[in-house]
């Protein structure tokens, strides 16, 4: 196993060394990193977490040791242009315009919509945006049973967008628990530029 000894080195040296090492490693290779600086340890962990890497951390005295496995190389992370590459699946936007899913019994409609949003976050490809308008904005209220699922989606990087006119119309601005309050210009732009739009 390769070992990076960063003892005695101050931020950002350890991170520079870690990035170099990760670039040279193949997926699945193990790496051991040693540091004796608490700030460096914290910053290394923040960086790794943001890359989706969960190292094993152990400490002996002042020396901390991180054990980690190199992940699959994600070229898009180091090359912004790769995001635009045409062989990636096109982004999609979920557009919710009511508090219910489908016509018929509104109680059933509420349950269906709740289940739909819960399932959204389990999709292999997450929507780039969830657009809520008209009655749909009420789903983003703190009291809504869907609020926590929408927060989870937001944490995963999906942008939740609310129609500002609708939020004002229902007078619920102070009760909104998730999402960016937006206007029709931005919503139109988002829907028009989406790869495709899913409307439950």
């Amino acid at each position, binding site marked *: 196993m390769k070992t990076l000894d960063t003892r005695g080195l101050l931020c*950002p040296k350890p991170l520079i060394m870690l990035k170099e090492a990760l670039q040279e490693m193949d997926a699945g290779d193990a790496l051991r990193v040693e540091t004796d600086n608490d700030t460096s340890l914290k910053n290394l962990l923040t960086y790794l977490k943001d890359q989706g890497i969960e190292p094993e951390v152990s400490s002996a005295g002042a020396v901390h040791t991180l054990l980690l496995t190199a992940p699959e190389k994600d070229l898009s992370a180091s090359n912004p242009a790769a995001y635009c590459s045409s062989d990636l699946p096109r982004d999609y936007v979920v557009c919710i315009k009511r508090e219910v899913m489908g016509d018929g019994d509104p109680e059933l409609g509420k349950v269906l919509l709740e289940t739909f949003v819960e399932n959204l976050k389990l999709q292999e490809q997450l929507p780039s945006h969830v657009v809520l308008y008209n009655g749909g904005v009420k789903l983003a209220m703190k009291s809504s049973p869907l609020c926590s699922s929408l927060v989870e989606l937001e944490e995963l990087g999906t942008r939740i967008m609310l129609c500002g006119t609708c939020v004002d119309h229902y007078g619920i601005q102070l009760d909104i628990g998730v999402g960016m309050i937006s206007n029709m210009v931005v919503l139109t732009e988002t829907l028009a530029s989406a790869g495709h739009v899913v409307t439950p």
Partner: protein
Amino acid sequence: MKEKFDLLSTIEYGGCSAKLPAGLLSEVLGKLPLVKDPRLLVDLETHDDAGVYKLNEETALIFTTDFFPPICSDAYEFGEISAANALSDIYAMGGTPLMALNLMMFSQERIPLDVFGQILEGGQAKVREAGALVAGGHTIDDHPPKYGLAVVGTVHPDHLITNAGARPNDVLLLTKAIGTGALVSGQKNGLCSEGDYRLALEQMKQLNRHASALAVKYHVRGMTDITGFALAGHAMKMAEASRVSFRIHSLQVPLLPGAYQVFEKGSIPGATFRNLEFTGEQAHFARSVDYNIKMLLHDAQTSGGLLLAVNPDHAASLLSDLNRLDPEISAMEIGEVIPESPRRLYFE
């Protein structure tokens, strides 16, 4: 000829990245009794750039200070940058600087005395460029050295521009590129070109004078300058004070050449991580935002640009006026003000 003294040899980190973490600062300041007085137009509460005291109906006094350890090797340049940074707080309120006092911490046992003089000369030249006067100062023995100024300026009370004046639908303009922290770190670790580093130094020396005058001309109500808490941290404080949220298009944020490459190589200063912690859940990043860009948005700036919230009808004129007056810096429209939402910042 004697060898030129390298100021950077005295320190581990410099510039505004030497600031206390913002969260820690709020914790301490929050415990102090808040001074309220009708004559204080701007106080600590909105985390503004300076204190503002109303003298009469026509004039308010702006008072500010800033100082830090060396950000570059050359003493004269350090003086210039530190002065430009201190003066910036006056400009960020829409004011005109009048007078400054030097604040210096310097150990004559550790550093040649002519370095002391060169720092002051650089500072004085910058203050003169701003049309203000250096009227003295104070020095104490300390190492590593620190230099900055306390500055007073004035503003018409009706034209005062604060953190709290941004309104939904305003357009956000940033008047300087970001990445000074990255390039200083890159230069220290041999990860950027001399040319890119020079460009960062030149930008740090640039006064925010023209941008400030144009903000007044175009009736801008909300403005701040970007320094140690990074674009993201200062934008968050401004959105909070204005009780709005900001939507920022990260690909439109101007970057100093070479800054991205420095972060790509992992040379990310500790201040960046502290700022990231400070904005925390208040900042949301769309999945498409590149990791290094996200970190650059949290890169501590020294003598950074102004962030203006301007009426959309005036944004284009202001921007073109500014690019004519300051052609060497790259002002850009970077986003818009949106109604107060659960988070303060939304980065696309």
